[in-house]
């Protein structure tokens, strides 16, 4: 369970988030919607511990994020990310990119996940040697490898055509079915079909 309490955020003098409080239950597929510039990415970054809010607090499983002792291990084991741009490391091949994120005892899962996402045969290619849709699937594989409790995705289909977008959404929906909490920020209304909860940000 994720609990946001009075979260506000400023970039310099510009306020982007205004005193937000809400809860995301386990197993939910949350859709953060809103226009471009409404603060979706900012909120998602805060929810996923990648950005400290200017004020307010965030609790994950009842624990304040500020009090998590080993934030690195927490991120690696509990959270998965998918960004709009795949953000794979360019000097590592597909397998190595996933292995970089994987916990020691999850490395054995890598090939199984690649197989499930239909990209096993790309294992030894580099990010610049595969298509955009394939890259996003690798990014998804990387997010799934540690079997995290929560997956955050920021415009995961932003650079994909509708066919590839559908693939990504259904893969996320599958994760939800297995009990993972998924939070997606997007301006793409297609996700409404998959979402179990929607938060709409206004400018």
């Amino acid at each position, binding site marked *: 369970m994720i609990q946001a309490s009075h979260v506000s955020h400023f970039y310099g003098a510009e306020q982007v988030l205004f005193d937000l409080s809400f809860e995301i239950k386990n197993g939910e597929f949350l859709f953060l919607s809103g226009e471009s510039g409404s603060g979706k990415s900012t909120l998602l*970054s805060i929810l*996923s511990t*990648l950005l400290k809010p200017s004020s307010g607090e965030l609790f994950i499983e009842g624990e304040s994020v500020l009090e998590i002792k080993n934030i690195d291990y927490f991120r*690696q084991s509990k*959270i998965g*990310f998918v960004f709009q741009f795949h*953000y794979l490391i360019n000097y590592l091949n597909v397998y*190595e990119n996933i292995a*970089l994120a994987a916990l020691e005892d999850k490395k054995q899962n890598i090939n199984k996940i690649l197989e499930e996402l239909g990209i096993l045969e790309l294992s030894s290619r580099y990010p610049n040697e595969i298509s955009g849709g394939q890259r996003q699937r690798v990014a998804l594989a990387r997010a799934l490898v540690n079997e995290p409790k929560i997956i955050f995705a920021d415009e995961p289909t932003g650079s994909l055509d509708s066919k590839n977008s559908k693939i990504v959404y259904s893969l996320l929906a599958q994760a939800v079915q297995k009990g993972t909490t998924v939070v997606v920020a997007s301006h793409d209304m297609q996700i409404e079909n998959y979402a179990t909860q929607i938060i709409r940000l206004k400018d």
Partner: protein
Amino acid sequence: MTAIKALRKNPLKSLLIFSSITIAVMAIFLISSVSQGVIGMYSKMINSDGDIIVTQKGISDTFFSNVDIGLIQKINELKHVSSSYAMIVGASPVGHIPIAGIYGTTANHFEHYKLLRGVYPKEGEVILGENLAKQFSTSNINIGNKKFEISGVYSSEIGFEEGGLVMNISDAGVLFNRSASMLFVSSSSPNEIESIAKKISDLSSEIEVKTTQNFVKEYNQFKIIENSSLVISTLAFAMGLMGIASVMSMIVNSRKEEFGIMRALGKSRFFIIKNLFFETLIMSISAYIFALLLSLGILALLPHIEMLQWYVNGTLSLSTALYVLASTIFMALLGSLLPAWIASKTDPILLINQGCA
């Protein structure tokens, strides 16, 4: 290993760091070793014979020194003196060569120059250094406005001397209008050198007497070369090191996005710093070795370059090499790890966004 993959996958960046480190290190090596070499060669020439040097009082440059050669007789009568000789060191146009070193010495010092062919010079004759001899095929040679017969060719370990010629001190005296530039005195007992120097200095009020060791240490021209080379090589070194540090920090800045991603994936700051540490280490050590080899190659070629008249010799001391190695690695690490450490404190998402900018 991640570090090597990162270096291999970005060959252009790697080459940029590699070559900037190489150039910086080479500049340091060449400047400091050439000046060390010039000084070393000159002091070897002066040190090679004699324990005591007698020059004219108050003259800083031996080219202008004038000492009465008659003192030799009195010096030879002193206790513990085993031998002494006089020398005139000058420079003059020689045949078509615009300038060459001329060494006039008393006959008892001729054997310092190893004859390759011919005989040692009588009055009106000269022997040519091996390198100078290559320039002449005639049997005589014009020096100033006088003609000299060439009686032989010599070799010497000292580059200066191979580019010059040797004649009797009486001939050189006429040429340079003096009695002797310097007197060199050898002693049979090393413990007596100081006291002999004292006694020689009592012989005349117009002379300055120094042990060879002190002379080399205090000789103004050495100090000038030494100090200016110290300044230049320190500057080159500082610039080189700053170059290394700034290239490294540029590279690190251009990788903020990558570090942000790694932090988002749960990689620790330590993990990032560790990888960067090895990347930097591999890079700077291999560039250092490359620069060292190149410099040694160039230094080995220098004595054979005609344009430099074989005057320039370079030696690279182990302590310089190690000192440069240590500072190169230090600066490279400082340049890469410091900005990386600062960057890794930033929230991952901001790091990713900064990287895009």
